[in-house]
């Protein structure tokens, strides 16, 4: 459970980078249709059947396929009754093959159901058969370009976790007790403080250890630290949170205000703690 929280809060992402270097592949470009409601719709084949029009939604934690499309594409047998939406929530099925333009994805999890929001959009904009969300697009480095009305996909080696399972675990987990410790990933060699009543952006650099990484990069006591590696540092906790996401041995941009001037530094934290 602890690991889930950890991963969810983004700290789990750093190790993934090291482990998951997928070979570079040519991006697949897929056009999308923008409904007047500003929803994106893509044309998708399910098990070779279709194409079906599916909503493409980065805010959807699940893929959803409507009952009729599920029957046609063999995800639901012709006679099987679809699960009632709210009373007996269905278990996800794995769609053997999803094709989006030249993109082919196997074993894509989806819920079979007629979602009322999909039904409402279908009425207004013609038949829509479901939603493609996180469990699909998370497998790729994906770009969305509203200007060109297209998206691109490159497999990134990421294996999307089972959303329902993670949520169940989260809901059943005991409420957290005590503070959570946030650990910098490297050793920077400085301390910060935020005096009571100080509501301005940033924190004040208090001490810079001689010979440390921060001193080497030009950080000075009294600097107002505004961002660390692109992260806001408006509290001491924020500052540590930012450092937790910044691997040692790499240069990170740091912005400080010193005597009314914003200065951009480059600091390279070292392995250690």
């Amino acid at each position: 459970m602890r690991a889930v929280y950890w991963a969810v809060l983004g700290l789990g992402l750093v190790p993934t980078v090291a482990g998951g270097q997928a070979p570079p592949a040519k991006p697949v470009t897929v056009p999308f249709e923008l409904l007047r409601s500003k929803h994106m719709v893509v044309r998708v084949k399910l098990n070779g059947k279709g194409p079906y029009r599916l909503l493409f939604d980065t805010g959807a934690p699940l893929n959803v396929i409507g009952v009729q499309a599920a029957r046609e594409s063999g995800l639901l047998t012709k006679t099987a009754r679809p699960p009632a939406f709210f009373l007996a929530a269905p278990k996800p099925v794995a769609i053997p093959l999803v094709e989006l333009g030249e993109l082919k994805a196997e074993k894509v999890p989806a819920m079979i159901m007629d979602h009322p929001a999909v039904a409402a959009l279908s009425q207004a904009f013609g038949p829509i058969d479901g939603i493609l969300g996180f469990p699909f697009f998370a497998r790729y480095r994906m770009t969305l370009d509203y200007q060109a009305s297209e998206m691109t996909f490159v497999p990134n080696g990421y294996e999307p976790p089972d959303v329902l399972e993670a949520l169940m675990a989260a809901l059943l987990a005991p409420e957290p007790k005590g503070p959570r410790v946030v650990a910098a990933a490297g050793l920077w060699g400085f301390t910060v403080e935020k005096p009571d009543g100080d509501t301005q952006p940033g924190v004040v650099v208090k001490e810079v250890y001689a010979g440390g990484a921060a001193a080497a990069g030009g950080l000075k006591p009294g600097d107002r630290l505004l961002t660390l590696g692109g992260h806001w540092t408006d509290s001491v906790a924020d500052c540590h949170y930012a450092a937790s996401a910044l691997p040692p041995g790499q240069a990170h941009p740091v912005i400080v205000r010193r005597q009314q001037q914003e200065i951009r530094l480059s600091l390279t934290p070292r392995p250690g703690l």
Partner: protein
Amino acid sequence: MRPLVLTLVSLWSLATPTWAQAPPQADTYQVPYRLTETKHVLVRVKINGHGPFHFLIDTGAPALFVATAVGKKVGVAPDTRGWATFKRFEIEGGVVIENARGRLDDPFQLEGMNKLGLAGVELHGVIGYNLLARYKLEFDFTRPTMTWTRLQYEPPEPTGLGRASAGLEGIALLVRMLSGLLARDTKVEIKPRGLLGMELEETAEGVWVRAVLANGPADRAGLKSGDRLVAVRGRAVARVGDVHRRLASVGPDEDVSLTLVRQGKAMTLTVTTGRGL
């Protein structure tokens, strides 16, 4: 529980704006994000200098939604139709949108997630189409940041959002009821890990102290450059990662024992952790 989870598949009501052109720009930003338990992409936002607030990136939302409580906090009141203009809308990583139009509203999806504490932090709104469409967006969950590139498009002012369907209103009611029943407090206080002040190096022989910060906690406890670290808090360490793991829950002002080998001799020292990073 499952039904509730399913309703978090977000879909919003309808809007009908049209396109317009904007001056060309080619700025690229690295936007830090977190992935919530619900697998939503969460970014931090400042509005008119206040914040940071937590917003979801949702292409299923037609516009920017800002919680009514946040509107009060940043001193922005809605017009008669619930819309407002936010003078400076800033997203962590350097994205700045001036005069952002958004709706001051408390969508049931956010209320539900907040009551259940599913995001790990309080959610304050959703960034939807009318702001997102100005950027080319790159999502890659193997990387710690999203990439946002300014496009030449200026999406149209959002107008009305139409009416929610009866089905959605039913879901809204259900979410409000269920999340009320299951409400839990998951807000967590953040405590920084304590500072030891030692640079480490890893070789096939193990973990070495490469340097200590002058007058830092490790230095004061007597650690020296060249010491080989063999155990932390009584457990053997072979890699730098082991040391991090053994100390992952240690806050400032705590005593930790480090066992090391110096010139062939083993010794155990106690370091009192400090504050800093």
